[in-house]
């Protein structure tokens, strides 16, 4: 693919594939290249196959190509899975002893001129007095030789990573790096050289996952407590906040269930600190009652919903975006809410800050959707944007906690000694919070709450349009679909645009109606089967989009998927 070089590490789950991916990513970044890294792994601790693919480019990228130029393979299961994802004229570096290929595999390699290079890691590590587990470093540094890259950045990254770890022989690591770099490749093994431009001072750029960005955004926004129950792909937020809790002072609590986590958030937010929880679909289902409670009692609530493929347990470690419907509708009764969707690290960092502000100002539940593809992929950015201002909408003291107001927002003051006490009530209530069954009070209070949606809608930014002024085709989507489209736009010659929604509900319909009027071809792009965004656009904007590009196989949209669609 134009302006891209792709390396994939594959092996059994538990063979250190993640670490290799991260080492390679950081080294290439330090060499001045942009990277985007994507993980595939099974929902088991040992065995199966896992991969880490790093796309390298001279410009900003945030989606993967479907195929790689170099496949580095440590296990036969992984080899069998990924052999057909190697580009023409590519190379496979592997450490699989006595590998046997079937006819189909042989023909594929031959037909595509793919070279196979075997590394006898047992002998190499023995010769270099290193434990066998360090063997994967040999293959890693061999890539640097193959691509004629300076290996020093790799050594720095590896030593930097291990220097504070006990029982790691750094000299043995260095010997393995050298052994890989001095590897005698067979004459036939050649790849196209990495001829990508370099970015100035790019070694100062950052590599982080969407989940890292959510954790950082929460810390920035003054969040002081995180309550959660582990569930892929939200789990690593717990790790990032937990591993930094000493310096942040944040309370990180692994609650006994998602029900508890959501309610603890409500207790803390009610009291006046900032707290949030994150989960995936199954855990989110358990939080449903809390969302409804927050809605009527007007307690700020922030939930991150990390989507993965499937219903039930689904395909736990694979990506998808089929939880917009549940985010929009979770919770009985009618109450206002805000739903936003993150597409990359910068979005994640900014939207979680917005989520806290909106939850507090409007006193509503805010659901921030992310997806495995965003949560766990590595994004390479120059720097994080400036922190947003903390806005809480608080007053010092008041009388009527649920006062009927024109914009729907009632005065909120925090529980504190000397302040007017009030009842925060999940029963329908009057302006003081006292339970009511009066017809007129029920209507007044329901309408007051619903008015917040209009007020909030006015405050939210419209969707962002990327692309030429006169596109012939415009993709409309949320979440990571944008990344594949934007990356494809850098390659295709067609006049492609992309309309991307971050703030999904309340829905802003104006922009999509403009395109509908222009008679441009609009294509709905969704990582689900039933066009959940399309349904929302129909409901809120009144337009039906017949052209759709869907994917619901646990994989994200690859750049190739978009290019292939455009060829049709």
């Amino acid at each position, binding site marked *: 693919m134009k302006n891209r070089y792709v390396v994939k590490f594959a092996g059994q789950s538990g063979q250190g594939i993640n670490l290799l991916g991260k080492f390679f990513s950081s080294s290439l970044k330090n060499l001045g290249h942009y990277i985007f890294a994507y993980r595939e792994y099974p929902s088991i601790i040992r065995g199966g196959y896992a991969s880490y693919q790093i796309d390298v480019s001279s410009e900003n990228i945030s989606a993967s190509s479907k195929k790689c130029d170099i496949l580095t393979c440590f296990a036969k299961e992984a080899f069998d899975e990924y052999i057909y994802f190697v580009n023409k004229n590519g190379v496979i570096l592997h450490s699989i002893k006595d590998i046997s290929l079937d006819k189909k595999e042989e023909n594929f390699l031959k037909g595509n001129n793919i070279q196979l290079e075997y590394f006898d890691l047992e002998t190499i590590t023995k010769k270099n007095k290193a434990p066998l587990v360090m063997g994967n470093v040999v293959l890693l540094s061999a890539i640097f030789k193959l691509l004629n890259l300076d290996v020093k950045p790799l050594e720095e990254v590896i030593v930097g990573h291990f220097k504070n770890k006990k029982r790691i022989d750094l000299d043995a690591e260095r010997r393995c790096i050298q052994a890989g770099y001095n590897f005698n490749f067979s004459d036939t093994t050649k790849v196209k050289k990495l001829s990508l431009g370099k970015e100035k001072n790019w070694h100062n750029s950052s590599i982080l996952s969407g989940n890292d960005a959510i954790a*950082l955004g929460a810390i920035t926004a003054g969040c002081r407590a995180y309550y959660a129950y582990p569930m892929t792909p939200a789990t690593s937020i717990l790790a990032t906040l937990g591993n930094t809790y000493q310096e942040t*002072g944040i309370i990180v609590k692994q609650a006994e269930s998602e029900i*508890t986590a959501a*309610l603890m958030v409500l*207790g803390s937010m009610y*009291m006046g*600190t900032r707290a949030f929880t994150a989960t995936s679909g199954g855990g989110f289902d358990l939080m449903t009652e809390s969302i409804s409670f927050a809605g009527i009692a007007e307690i700020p609530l922030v939930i991150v919903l990390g989507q993965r493929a499937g219903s039930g347990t689904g395909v736990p470690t694979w990506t998808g975006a089929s939880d917009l419907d549940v985010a929009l509708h979770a919770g009985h009764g009618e109450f206002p809410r805000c739903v936003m969707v993150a597409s990359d690290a910068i979005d994640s960092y900014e939207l979680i800050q917005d989520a806290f502000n909106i939850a507090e100002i409007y006193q509503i539940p805010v659901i921030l959707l992310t997806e495995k593809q965003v949560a766990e992929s590595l994004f390479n950015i120059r720097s994080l944007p400036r922190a947003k201002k903390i806005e809480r909408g608080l007053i010092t003291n008041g009388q009527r906690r649920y006062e009927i107001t024109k914009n729907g927002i009632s005065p909120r003051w925090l529980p504190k000694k000397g302040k007017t*006490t009030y009842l925060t009530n999940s029963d329908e209530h009057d302006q003081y919070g006292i339970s009511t069954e009066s017809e007129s009070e029920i209507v007044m209070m329901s309408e007051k709450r619903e008015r917040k949606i209009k007020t909030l809608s006015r405050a939210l930014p419209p969707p962002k349009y990327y692309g030429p002024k006169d596109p012939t085709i415009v993709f409309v989507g949320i979440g990571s679909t944008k990344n594949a489209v934007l990356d494809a736009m850098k390659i295709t010659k067609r006049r492609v645009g992309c309309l991307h929604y971050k703030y999904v509900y309340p829905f802003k319909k104006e922009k999509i109606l403009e395109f509908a009027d222009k008679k441009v071809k609009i294509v709905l792009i969704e990582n689900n089967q039933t066009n959940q965004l399309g349904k929302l656009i129909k409901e809120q904007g009144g337009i039906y989009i017949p052209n759709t590009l869907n994917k619901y196989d646990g994989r994200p949209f690859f750049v190739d998927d978009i290019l292939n669609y455009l060829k049709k």
Partner: protein
Amino acid sequence: MSITIDSYNTDVKNTWCPGCGNFNIHLALKKALAELKKDPSEVVITFDIGCNGNGGDKIKAFNIKGLHGRALPIAIGAHLANREMTTIATIGDGGCLHEGIDHLIHGIRSNYNITVLIHNNQNFALTTGQITSTTIKGKRMYGFPHGKTEGDINIGELVLSLNPSFYARGYSGDCIHLTEIIKEGIKHRGFSVIEIIQLCPTYNREFSHDVASKLVKKVDVSDSIEKARKHILNSKNLSIGVLYQNKKLTDYYSSLKNRKSIKTELVDEVKRKNISNILAKL
């Protein structure tokens, strides 16, 4: 202005049945808080859904009437955010032992510094008298003419099996004694579980004040789980008092390593924080 029971009264009309144990429980709670010189604005009380939950607007404090069975996690979240407030969770035997039993178990295990009042009236009363795990065996209940099929949960046994830091039992028919117990619970630094044997003259008529007052027996505070268990399992009497207290267990927040040197409460800390150091280490 001195704080009295009246400081805690609201002008909302009471809706409990005549003779309901909740009148005395509320009185004892108000009296305990007043005697501890707590201003209503220093107190957070979370309420369950049910007859006890209907008390949410009948005592002046920062109250939350939340969801059935969920009084505990809301109270815990509130407590962790600001320990300057006295946090109390009130919940019925139905909500506490059925839908919310995990919260009770993990609350004891975590030893948060809050006080839990379990109103044990031996049935789901607000939904007109259904079976709970404390309902007397064989008693005709809503939809079950021959009583319950399942076994019981003995609250004291359950709590004592979890290495609690405080377990007390009071009786709604003895307001003065109950007041003292609630005061001890609030003063205790840890997860104070107070089971209140509550009269329900509508759906648990058999267990009247006449019957109950003959059974209750006041016992002294003990630091022995075994001794407390003996009191609980004694079928001849209903022992009331602080049955078990362990002052040596550290409460959850005080055990947090990252909060040791921090003097402020979480509610004072909602400020922009620089993350460049953390980003650099990722």
